[in-house]
């Protein structure tokens, strides 16, 4: 490798208001022909650093140099023009335009009289995608293709704009393994061409597979830059979370040991051949007090849909639902809440948090709804509840007055968890509770779940990460094609057993 400095960021600071310091004297350095991982927990300052670099946010202090030249982009457009391109986690292309249009939007090749040279544009687009081994009909609109393909198109677009620096902000979270491999081969090729790539991700495996160096941030501070080959996973994780991962894992282990001893209590939820048109079919499911029941299956298999029916969001169209031995008809989430059910939905942003409200209000909300409009929880009481859970769940915030949208994803999730725990539920349903959350917080949340079950709560745990389910659950029900496909429990639980059922092996 050439070791030519491409980008240096020095002494970068950025704060939002007085209370929130997002970046404090952060350094970052990128070489030509390098894939450099930018790692840190949620709230470490990765995204803010990227935003400063791409001109979305203006830095308060610090210098940025690109190939020895001081730069100060004030918009993503400006950043792109000087050669810094970004591909975000959520694809930000126009799904209604054609693939070629998306790639060349704003810089389409022109004919003599100013009209767009469509033929050339389509040809160029095909050629460009060909470099990435993608054969698409570039005249078709983008929404004809999967999210993965869209992501590739975004990367193709970004890498084509005379990019010197390519930023990939969690590009793999929606990709399958095969697609990730493809992406990596593209990244490696771009690296060979001398491009510097900044790679932000939560997946440590990928860090070790593809990156050359790692820079770790924590709480807005620079922790260090390391050669990937010289840093063990344990060391890396400890640097990211600022505490010894081994000890954290140990306490989780202990919780699990305890879990083994506690026996499941009596049945709390009993679904008898419950259906909801188009989402679940003839579902038989029981959840007992004191157990963490895992619900596994591929996307669209009916995992989240089962929880939605249980919580009264979708109505039962067939079969019977019993809660605590009593036949019920849930027409609205409030009906479920009154039966002591609680549900942390999958989409934290759209279905969970009330962004512009304080942490205190967010926590009090469900309890207030349960109590009704007229039994107002006083500000003092709400403050007390909020303080209690901020302490108990270790929510990182200056105070309960902070707006929830200013918190990191992991802390937002803890607030939503606090909202439901405040209602004192008997069944807690968690849909992807640790998605997009750093491993430190992940382990904390898993521990909380196991502890709650040990105290007698029934928990329904939905996760697309199998090892997480294996770690938390004593019993896993596997769904397939909107139906129950099988169940594994106790000592039979293993990744292989669950996958076999998922893939259509024999149901037990």
């Amino acid at each position: 490798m050439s070791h030519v400095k491409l980008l240096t960021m020095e002494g970068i600071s950025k704060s939002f208001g007085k209370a929130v310091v997002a970046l404090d004297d952060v350094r970052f350095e990128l070489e030509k022909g390098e894939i450099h991982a930018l790692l840190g927990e949620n709230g470490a300052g990765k995204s803010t650093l990227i935003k400063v670099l791409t001109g979305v946010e203006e830095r308060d202090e610090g210098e940025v140099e690109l190939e020895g030249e001081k730069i100060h982009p004030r918009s993503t457009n400006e950043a792109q023009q000087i050669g810094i391109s970004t591909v975000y986690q959520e694809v930000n292309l126009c799904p209604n335009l054609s693939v070629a249009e998306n790639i060349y939007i704003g810089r389409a090749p022109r004919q003599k009289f100013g009209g767009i040279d469509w033929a050339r544009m389509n040809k160029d687009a095909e050629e460009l995608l060909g470099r990435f081994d993608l054969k698409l009909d570039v005249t078709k609109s983008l929404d004809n293709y999967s999210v993965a393909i869209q992501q590739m198109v975004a990367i193709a677009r970004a890498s084509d704009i005379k990019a010197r620096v390519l930023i990939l902000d969690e590009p793999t979270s929606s990709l399958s393994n095969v697609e990730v491999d493809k992406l990596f081969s593209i990244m490696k090729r771009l690296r060979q061409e001398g491009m510097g790539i900044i790679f932000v991700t939560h997946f440590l495996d990928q860090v070790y597979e593809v990156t050359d160096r790692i820079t770790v941030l924590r709480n807005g501070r620079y922790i260090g830059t390391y050669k990937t080959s010289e840093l063990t996973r344990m060391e890396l994780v400890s640097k990211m979370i600022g505490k010894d991962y081994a000890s954290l894992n140990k306490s989780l282990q202990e919780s699990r040991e305890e879990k083994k001893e506690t026996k499941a209590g009596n049945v709390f939820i009993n679904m008898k051949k419950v259906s909801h048109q188009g989402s679940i079919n003839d579902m038989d499911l029981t959840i007992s007090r004191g157990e963490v029941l895992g619900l596994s299956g591929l996307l669209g298999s009916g995992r989240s849909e089962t929880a939605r029916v249980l919580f009264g969001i979708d109505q039962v169209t067939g079969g019977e639902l019993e809660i605590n031995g009593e036949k019920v008809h849930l027409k609205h989430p409030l009906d479920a809440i009154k039966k002591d059910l609680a549900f942390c939905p999958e989409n934290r942003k759209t279905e969970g948090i009330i962004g512009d409200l304080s942490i205190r209000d967010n926590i009090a909300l469900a309890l207030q709804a349960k109590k009704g409009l007229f039994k107002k929880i006083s500000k003092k009481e709400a403050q007390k509840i909020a303080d209690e859970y901020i302490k108990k769940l270790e929510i990182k915030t200056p105070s309960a007055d902070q707006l929830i949208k200013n918190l990191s994803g992991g802390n937002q999730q803890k607030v939503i968890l606090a909202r439901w725990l405040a209602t004192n539920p008997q069944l807690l349903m968690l849909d992807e509770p640790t998605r997009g959350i750093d491993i430190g917080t992940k382990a904390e949340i898993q521990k909380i779940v196991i502890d709650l079950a040990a105290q007698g709560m029934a928990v329904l745990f939905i996760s697309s990460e199998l090892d997480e389910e294996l770690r938390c659950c004593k019993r896993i029900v596997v769904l397939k094609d909107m139906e129950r496909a099988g169940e594994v429990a106790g000592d039979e639980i293993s990744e292989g057993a669950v996958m076999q059922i998922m893939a259509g092996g024999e149901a037990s």
Partner: protein
Amino acid sequence: MKKRLSKLSGSQAFWPVMIFLAIILFNTIMTRGEFLTISIVDGHFYGRIIDIFRNGGKLMILAAGMTMVLATGGTDISVGSVMAISGAIACSIINGNLLPGLGGNVAMAIILAILAGVTCGLWNGFLVSQIKIQPIVATMILLVAGRGIAQLITNGKIITINSDAYYFINGGYILGLPFPLYIVLFLVGLLLLFVQKTAFGLFLESIGCNPLASKFAGIKVNKFLLAIYTISGAFASVAGLIESAGIKGADCNNAGLNIELDAILAVAIGGTNLMGGRFSIFSSVIGALIVQSITTTVLALGVPAAYIRVLKAVLIIVICLAQSSKFKVSLGKIFVGKRGRKEAVAL
């Protein structure tokens, strides 16, 4: 003390109150104090300030109702037409054209007019919450149809009535102060009390910020929307009564014409987020006073009435700029300049 001051200036009502006081101060200086004089005739207070409060009554009531609608992220542009309907019903009953069996009973006329407002609000709420029509379109239906309905009630004529009891709604005095002020105090006070004593405010802000998450947290969003549009309709009908009592009759073409825009303006001046979320009914009421005081200012200064709209436009621009955080930042940069910046760093 300093802390208390900063808490005060941080509250949503701070700037609206300041703007209102500034307008009054401006007028007082321009009219060499005449603006502030309050005379007592027959035990009634008269003066420009009293005028603002009396004539602004309708707008204050509408703004209070509109605040809640806007806080849900919706809007209600039908309030002017609802005012026309309510005035038409009340006046038609009093002069015996409608329901002659009631014998022109003023109390019944008022009750039925308000019931009509409630019905209009229910209709709007039904369209928005059940049929899921966009609020601006849903309430546009009544905006257009409402005046037609009012004209059907009055047979397309301007009705004049003769009823001292009805005139009292706008022209009456209690303890020297105009009666509309008491209506405002009652309705706004009731609303503020409701917000204060129940979880209404929390639910409303929650729905305005994120209706889906609110539903998932157990709030019955649809019922809530229905109730809020209904309150807005009821408040509009009261405003309609004040208006028609003021002109001593019902003019379906002009009653409450374009007043929905003034009401929305008042809420915006009050600093409530028109996209939904944080709201303050008190600030909106002050906002309504500001809008009203502009009209009074123009009249007090002897400026042709045609300028009122232009002045309002200028004020909207100023207020929007004052509330834009981006503008404040760039303004700060101009004033502080490079030298000041260095000092700030040194500090």
